[in-house]
């Protein structure tokens, strides 16, 4: 477990499935929970337990983010890593209200450390639906730059949504050690 001033970040376990399931909310779609076809997944609790129990090359699929009272506030991950091209996908699953807090800053620092210091990636990527304005602001605060907007990528809540891609290069990242 990595302890910051405002958070504790640890490997997510099967027991965290119930909290993770609350983020798969069709009324508040999240880009990071879409599949390859940009379709919204609606996994069952059992499926999430199974996913959280898995490890990818010895690493957890998700890290759980706890606040100082031990409550799980969300999840994060560095997934889809391309070792040849040295980039990974930055995934943060937090409530909108948490994205502008010191806890969210620590989540960014944790993942930036993973990507740029431990894995020596050249850049990290992430996506943002046009309805995720708080997440977009969070990315911009941490130096992500837009790579462009894909139009009408997914149909949800009765309308088409655009998907914006962002990247952050190692040279542009401000990285602080959490511990």
């Amino acid at each position, binding site marked *: 477990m990595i302890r910051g001033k405002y958070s504790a970040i640890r490997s997510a376990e099967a027991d965290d499935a119930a909290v993770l399931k609350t983020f798969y909310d069709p009324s508040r779609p999240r880009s990071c929970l879409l599949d390859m076809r940009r*379709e919204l997944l609606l996994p069952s609790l059992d499926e999430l337990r199974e996913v959280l129990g898995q490890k990818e090359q010895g690493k957890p699929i998700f890290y759980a983010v706890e606040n100082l009272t031990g409550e799980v506030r969300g999840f994060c991950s560095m997934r889809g890593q391309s070792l040849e091209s040295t980039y990974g996908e930055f995934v943060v699953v937090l409530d909108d209200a948490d994205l502008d807090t010191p806890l969210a800053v620590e989540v960014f620092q944790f993942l930036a450390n993973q990507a740029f210091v431990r894995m020596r990636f050249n850049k990290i990527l992430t996506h943002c639906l046009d309805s995720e304005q708080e997440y977009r602001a969070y990315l911009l605060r941490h130096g992500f730059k837009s790579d462009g907007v*894909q139009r009408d*990528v997914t149909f949800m809540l009765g309308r088409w949504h655009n998907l914006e891609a962002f990247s952050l290069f190692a040279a542009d990242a401000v990285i602080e050690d959490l511990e």
Partner: protein
Amino acid sequence: MALKSKTYIRRAEREDLDKIVEWMEEPDFLRFLYGDPTRSPRQIREHIVSMLGRSSAQTVPGSLYLLIDSEEWGPVGLLSLQNISWRNRSCSADLYIGKKEFRNHMVAAVSFYRAVDYCFNELNLHRITAYIYAFNEPSWRIMEKSGAKRELTFRDHVARDGQLYDVYGYGLLRSDYEAFCQKHPHLIAGLMSSMVDAQRVASAETAS
């Protein structure tokens, strides 16, 4: 001038396996499309067998592999429509022209337009996505001529020959394609149905 050519697209069959394996082992295939040079010929063959084995009768396939064929030259290239989403009415498209002499030829453009026509007018899709390496200029030029918009530029995104290159993400919406067709009706007039089996058409004509 109408975009007529002697090519047509059809479902890939098991008999096409050797030809497709031959293309997939080419350095150009690895460079321009799925560049994993560590895959053995056996792994490539197994991958292709699995993709050809997908049932055409399946109502909602997740991917389609089509062969660009011609009576005159035989199989010319491979077209894959992947990540087909029936909810989002979208797919991603990859086109590989195996015969090098046709790569900068009208055949590549016509094949792509046939695929686009098939996606919008047969599969009723709303959007086609294509990711193309920046150094593959002939391919992204074809995309742009079809009305597709360059929506993304991923900088330093793919490694080839020890260097990092940009990748462009293109999106072609049905509305983009309709605008293109309105603007160039004379080009589209020759396309007809995309899934024409020329042999069958020829047989029918002979019979009649």
